[in-house]
């Protein structure tokens, strides 16, 4: 990352002890973006307990424990903003996304509850549900979807697939005071995909 004034603290968020240690080492925070996520494309009949755990441990459990630790260790300043990267798939019925979509839908529910619990401290909690964004995670989709079909599917997006900056810009808005009256929002960001 270019520029100054930042530090990097790599941490395996699925490792409870490591997560607790990392939170302890932090200064108090004005904003947090929760963006840990993994994906698998799996038809429902191949679901196993292990595969549920693989997805939920990263996409849901680790994020919730991180919030819990930040709260318990008093690391969130008053008027802080928490922002979760969810997924448009949490609102749709895309075949083979049972575990991924469910884990993100669980996050959406958590955002609402956390927004209500943290409102007395003026801490805001919001999420964005992006459609398809060209990121390295998309390589997982290319692995199971033929590349020409992947490119063809972009026609379903009136504004085309998104770029990482498009999601980052929503994070800037929700972390800033420009969104000071917004909490519990689940924002759709999909280049018009769900207009039809």
């Amino acid at each position, binding site marked *: 990352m270019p520029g100054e004034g930042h530090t990097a603290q790599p941490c395996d968020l699925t490792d409870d002890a490591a997560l607790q240690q990392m939170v302890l080492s932090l200064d108090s925070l004005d904003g947090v973006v929760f963006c840990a996520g993994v994906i698998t*494309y799996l*038809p429902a009949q191949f679901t196993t307990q292990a595969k549920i755990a693989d997805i939920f441990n990263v996409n849901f459990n680790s994020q919730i424990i991180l919030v819990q630790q930040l709260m318990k260790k008093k690391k969130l300043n008053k008027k802080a903003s928490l922002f979760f990267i969810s997924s448009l798939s949490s609102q749709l019925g895309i075949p083979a996304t049972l575990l991924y979509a469910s884990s993100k839908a669980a996050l959406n529910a958590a955002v609402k509850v956390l927004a209500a619990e943290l409102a007395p401290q003026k801490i805001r909690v919001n999420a964005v549900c992006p459609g398809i964004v060209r990121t390295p995670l998309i390589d997982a989709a*290319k692995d*199971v*979807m033929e590349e020409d079909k992947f490119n063809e599917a972009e026609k379903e997006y009136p504004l085309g697939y998104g770029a990482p900056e498009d999601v980052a810009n929503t994070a800037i808005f929700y972390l800033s005071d420009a969104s000071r009256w917004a909490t519990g929002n689940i924002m759709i960001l999909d280049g018009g995909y769900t207009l039809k």
Partner: protein
Amino acid sequence: MEITTFVASFADLFDETPKSEIGEGTDFKQIEEWSSLLGLATIAMVDENYGVRISGDEIRESGTITDLFNLVKKKAAEK
């Protein structure tokens, strides 16, 4: 690794197509019931039964079920 077991597991992914219509030499993408979801089911079945990952492009490049079997066998041997 037996091809008869592989063909049986592959045929089991289909709900409508009679098992008698699915054999070693079948050009599986020409089966009417074939779909992208069955492609994902094939990837999941191979992962579950043989512990190897095949890709959508590799499925596209395979013609018959034997081609698919040989691909899985080669990948399993390289593990």
